[in-house]
């Protein structure tokens, strides 16, 4: 019979000390140093360089581009990191000095990180790239990430807001379709009233998702107003055009015979639920991002698209993202090679076709099949989608955007719920917002 040996304290301490020491040493060990960046462009490198590419959406979006990139640049490994809780984790990574080499950041985030020296100015890289065609990009998109002459990103795909409409509902109500060449707020309201049948839960228009500020931003633009001055240092919520715009749509929301109440929408998933109601055949018109096309293909009714209704001017909002190089990257030259490849005509097309968006390069949008076109057996004015990039604006990017939007959002809440008039509350809020966004 064997006797079990007891573990002596000395042995225990030796063993546990060894493990603890090894663990601490492993945790504290520096990440393997990257290969010398200077070797890039000189052909084959001694060791592969790894580039971290951080983005909020799945890696599948760049899978095609990544595959061809790896074939062309076998010595550069691109490690795609999908970062959840993007709005909080990107600042946390910045604070820790561990931002990915290339970050695909949201609009305001790109500017804010640039202003705070978390991204480098990549204009010198652009200037150093032979034959780089900056004019190929839509002007608004190309100019957006530039602060005081410094460029903090290259855009890829864009998602513009347009108006989708259910042609069958229009026919059933005997209402004429929106005119592609002239579609005003007044037209929108008239048509919506003509279609609305609240007793049978049919509405002419989607509701305004109150908490989703993009709706109010684009409405202000369409009336010649704006949330902010062009340099984002001053709040223009108190300007007459902005006040009129918000009040116009608030009155329509509160009317009850044009669009459903916010509570019927928000409780089942916010703005997305509005798209579900359109797909369910309950809504005549839906002003929304072009990404909802997919949900309409099998909806069982004929639909078409038209630009967003205009008032003082034709305008809309477009979403998208910018690719940047982080200041802490130790492989900036290599990072640029990937960034430039990913935002090339083909790179943007690859991503856009995966996301059903148009690209921010005109040349990407000339490649067929067009990503924003869905296969349906009726006529759709698909050209409305890329056309919106020629006149639409990008989500504003003031400093301290979150706090500013809280102040504006609280005021909008009051207006859209009928508890305040825009003319009364916006002049109170505007100086407070200005104080927040001017504190760069």
């Amino acid at each position, binding site marked *: 019979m064997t006797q079990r040996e007891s573990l002596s304290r000395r042995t*225990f301490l030796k063993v546990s000390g060894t493990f603890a020491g090894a663990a601490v040493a492993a945790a504290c060990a520096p990440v393997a140093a990257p290969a010398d960046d200077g070797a890039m462009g000189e052909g084959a490198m001694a060791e592969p360089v790894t580039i971290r590419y951080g983005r909020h959406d799945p890696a599948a979006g760049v899978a095609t581009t990544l595959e061809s990139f790896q074939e062309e640049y076998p010595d550069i490994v691109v490690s795609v990191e999908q970062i959840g809780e993007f709005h909080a984790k990107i600042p946390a990574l910045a604070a820790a000095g561990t931002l990915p080499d290339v970050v695909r950041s949201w609009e305001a985030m790109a500017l804010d990180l640039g202003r705070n020296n978390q991204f480098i100015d990549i204009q010198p890289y652009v200037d150093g790239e032979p034959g780089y065609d900056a004019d190929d990009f839509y002007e608004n998109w190309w100019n957006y990430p530039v602060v005081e002459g410094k460029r903090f990103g290259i855009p890829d795909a864009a998602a513009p807001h347009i108006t989708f409409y259910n042609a069958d509902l229009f026919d059933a109500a005997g209402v004429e379709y929106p005119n592609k060449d002239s579609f005003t707020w007044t037209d929108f309201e008239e048509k919506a009233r003509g279609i609305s049948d609240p007793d049978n839960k049919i509405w002419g228009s989607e509701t305004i998702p109150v908490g989703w500020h993009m709706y109010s931003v684009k409405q202000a633009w369409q009336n010649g107003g704006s949330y902010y001055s062009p340099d984002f240092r001053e709040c223009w919520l108190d300007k007459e055009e902005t006040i009129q715009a918000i009040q116009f749509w608030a009155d329509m929301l509160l009317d009850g015979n044009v669009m459903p109440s916010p*509570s019927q929408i928000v409780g089942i998933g916010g703005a997305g639920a509005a798209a579900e109601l359109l797909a369910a055949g309950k809504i005549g018109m839906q002003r929304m991002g072009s990404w909802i096309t997919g949900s309409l293909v099998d909806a069982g009714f004929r639909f078409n698209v038209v630009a967003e209704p205009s008032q003082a001017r034709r305008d809309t909002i477009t979403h998208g993202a910018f690719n940047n190089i982080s200041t802490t990257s130790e492989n900036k030259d290599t990072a640029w090679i990937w960034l430039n490849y990913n935002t090339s005509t083909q790179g943007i097309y690859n991503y856009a076709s995966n996301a059903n968006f148009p690209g921010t390069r005109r040349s990407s949008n000339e490649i067929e099949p067009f990503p924003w076109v869905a296969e349906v057996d009726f006529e759709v004015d698909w050209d409305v989608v890329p056309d919106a990039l020629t006149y639409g604006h990008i989500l504003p990017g003031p400093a301290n955007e*979150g706090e500013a939007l809280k102040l504006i959002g609280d005021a909008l809440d009051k207006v859209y719920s009928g508890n305040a008039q825009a003319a009364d509350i916006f002049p109170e809020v505007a100086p407070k917002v200005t104080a927040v966004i001017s504190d760069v």
Partner: protein
Amino acid sequence: MTTTGLAPRSNIWQSRRFRDAIVAYAFILPWVIGFILFVGGPIVASFVLSFFRWKMIAPPRFYGLTHYISMVTTDELFRISIWVTFKFVIISVPVSQVLALGLALLLNQRIRGLGFWRSAFYLPAVVSGVAGSIIWVWMYHVELGIVNNGLALMGLEGRNWLYDRELVLGSLIVKSLWNVGIPMVIYLAALQGMPQQLYEAADIDGSGEVSKFFAITLPMLSPAIFFNIVMGIIASVQTFAEPYVMTGGGPDNATLFLGLHLYQNAFHYLKMGYASAMAWIMFLLIFGLTVFQFGLAGRWVYYEGGAR
């Protein structure tokens, strides 16, 4: 061999007591390291940060007491969040305790399916706050929710539970009662440990059920009640998941709890220093309330075999 009044130094290092201590510390070392890194460190850091302005994407700047001063002088939302939290605590804690005690008394009876009922009432307590909140969003839904549809069956008109400024806090208080299983189990355990001889003596004296409840059950339960109230207040002041998931603090900031306001300052506005200062105010609030309760406890909490 010469001896001195002091033991040789080497004896201390080789003494059994010292070696035992080393082993003990070695065992707790992983926890201590974890505590320092993930709890103690952040606590100290948050205190230091509360005197700095730090957006995370730029270096911190010393701000002195500015955060603490502006919190009470200029931040209207802070005042709103304190008031919302106070109303929630003052209503939800007493109601949940009464409900938990009532359920515990019922589930302490000998009835059929006792195990099922005990499990059923405790079950929501094991559901995460976020998952439970999502379920309640659907329950409160104006058109599809079980609440309004249940009211419709009784011929009553449904309400907009989460988007009506007057109703929304009450709706969250009702949701918070879903977790009543936790204090209920503590009351149940206390009830089952109740000395039966006291009830037998009361029976001999001819006491009725009501007088037995107030003269025996309640005093004997007072330590459990005290514990549940302390824990209930701490949890209520820290309420976060429900407003975050169900209302986002709205409508019109009617459910802007202190915890949510803190979170928004930290992770939406990136005002880490300000959020840290708010966290310390929250800590002081909880600490003050707890000390206050301990001060009152001597007057009403009865410990069997001990002084009041």
